[in-house]
């Protein structure tokens, strides 16, 4: 059983192809810009409800996805813009979904917390903390049932660990050897509750031991470290379905949601500023430059194309109409529409 303990933050050794480096940088910047625009749109009232930004945590979704196949699955909680983009969803349809428009991924019915995209095997977008972990085990079950070699990445926060469903899903996945990669995005806070106030054991990866599940902690700000740890987990899962628990130590640069100020009472401005010094995008940019994987021109070029892509997404969302009122009663049941159901 690989049960590594956390390596003190030091850049992962890995070498990566220029092509891979380009994709990693592109995806991280895309997530960052996409969410900056979403934040603007929220301020303008174009997006309603809750909006949870992933800014600061991009390395986790991008690093993990970079070693997975398109036919692998991903599922996440409500802070899922990054995972959905990394999986390859169309930013335009995502933004339209956030705007609650008919061209959104789900015709505007789901919104920011419930992004789904069948075309890229992205299974949501779930807003009940911990509830998507058993779903991930179920997808792993289906993969095994069919004899496939796909895997599913299940992203969840440190706040999901005290929930009973974390325990049930971990045990079932380990007991039945389901190809699930439990990726805990430990950003040290669940809303305003710090790890120390939520868990009797704050080194989350250690929970894997209770299930004899391979587990390790990685520097979640180092996209290559996440990439390597995930590669190890994916190899195990593809080989014989062995699940893994990876604790990616990261940090949320913004507030819990747009309704929560970044430097709220539960953490100090100093702490936030300190963590921002380890911006995963900056760290990787420097790394890629020094290693010569990407040139200044490459970076400028990527930045530019990402900006265009995101502006396009906003324009697309703005132009998309609201869903017709008839949509209220569609999609309740697959075969028949609302009509078949008895209501009042």
């Amino acid at each position, binding site marked *: 059983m690989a049960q590594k303990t956390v390596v003190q933050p030091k850049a992962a050794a890995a070498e990566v192809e220029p092509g891979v480096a380009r994709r990693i940088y592109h995806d991280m910047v895309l997530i960052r810009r996409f969410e900056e625009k979403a934040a603007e749109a929220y301020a303008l009232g174009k997006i309603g409800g809750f909006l949870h930004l992933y800014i600061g945590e991009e390395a986790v979704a991008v690093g993990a996805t970079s070693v997975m196949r398109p036919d692998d699955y991903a599922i996440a909680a409500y802070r899922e813009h990054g995972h959905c983009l990394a999986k390859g969803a169309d930013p335009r349809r995502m933004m339209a979904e956030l705007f609650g428009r008919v061209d959104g991924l789900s015709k505007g*019915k789901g919104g920011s917390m419930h992004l789904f995209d069948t075309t890229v095997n992205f299974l949501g977008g779930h807003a009940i903390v911990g509830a998507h972990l058993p779903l991930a085990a179920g997808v792993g079950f289906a*993969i095994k049932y069919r004899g496939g070699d796909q895997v599913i990445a299940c992203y969840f926060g440190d706040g999901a660990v005290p929930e009973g469903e974390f325990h049930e899903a971990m045990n079932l996945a380990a007991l039945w050897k389901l190809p699930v990669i439990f990726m805990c995005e430990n950003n040290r806070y669940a809303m305003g509750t710090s790890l120390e106030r939520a868990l009797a054991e704050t080194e989350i990866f250690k929970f894997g031991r209770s299930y004899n599940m391979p587990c390790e902690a990685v520097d979640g700000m180092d996209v290559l470290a996440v990439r390597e740890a995930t590669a190890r987990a994916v190899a195990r899962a593809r080989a014989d379905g062995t699940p893994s628990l990876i604790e990616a130590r990261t940090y949320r640069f913004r507030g819990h949601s747009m309704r929560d100020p970044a430097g709220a009472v539960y953490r100090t401005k100093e702490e936030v500023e300190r963590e921002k010094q380890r911006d995963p995008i900056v760290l990787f940019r420097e790394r890629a430059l020094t290693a010569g994987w990407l040139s200044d021109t490459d970076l400028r070029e990527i930045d530019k194309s990402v900006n265009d892509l995101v502006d396009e997404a906003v324009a697309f969302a703005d132009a998309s109409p609201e869903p017709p009122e008839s949509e209220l009663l569609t*999609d309740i049941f697959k075969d028949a529409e609302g009509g078949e159901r008895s209501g009042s």
Partner: protein
Amino acid sequence: MAVMTYREALNLALREEMRRDERVFVIGEEVGLYEGAYKVTQGLLKEFGPRRIVDTPIAESGFTGVGIGAAMVGLRPVVEMMTFNFALLALDQIVNSAAKMHYMSGGQFNVPIVIRGPGGPAHQLAAQHSQSMEVYFYHVPGLKVVRPSTPADAKGLLKTAIRDDNPVIFIESETLYNIKGEVPEDPEFTIPLGQAAIRREGTDVTVIAYMGMMYRALEAADELATEGISMELVDPRTLQPLDTGTILTSVRKTHRAVVVEAGAGFAGMGSELSAVITEQAFDDLDAPVERVTGVPAPMPYAKNLEKAKTPSKERIIEAVRRVCYANGKP
């Protein structure tokens, strides 16, 4: 046609659908090696093996979630709740994941899952193991709810539920597993969801009841016949969707309605049926709809108290008399 028990009918439905569709599997506590706490899955492990008959630890939320996740990517799980009382532990998964997935995803994902097991009053199992559970489900948009009263319905409706592309809550009864009845053997025999059955034709009063209460109403009907009151007995069979058409047609004919349910009654099926009938057949009614429900108390253990908890034949008869003599003899 063959005569078999309600239990055997369910077992046959599971076998037929598993033979017919490789994507169908059964998962739950003690469904395999133990062959089911109530033996509904008897012999299935032997026929289909551990890949498709999956024993689980005690983790209702976990294995229900596993079923939902598997259904999202194309399998067709039949999740057994050893008894439906335990479904409360999985209610969040059923309501917030299964029932809403299709809607939240704008139709991209659907959850073809059947969650089945015994529910309702049993024999001296007391407060935590003897409850009418349908009340937690039929009001939830996105769920279908079935309560099959006969062996034939058990088979036909379970097969339809398994073929349905949406989550179906299928609540059986410990007290009915041993009843016998004629059951069609045709593997293509199914019963559409949302069709009530007329269990007995009559002219003076429409009684609506399902499961154990349906049988109690039948006894009441015999007794009432001796005093010249002719009862029409309607069994909704599926509570969601509800076949209001058949119910209203009957009430418009008899002008009187009595609804019987084992549950506590407050905002229950009886309330809904009473409201619907009154709204849609107000001018046809000679008397207000009567509700005969379980006493609003947790289920007591003591035999005599337990007996008094659920509607008796006598209480059904009294209610029928009240509606029939409300405005003079029928």
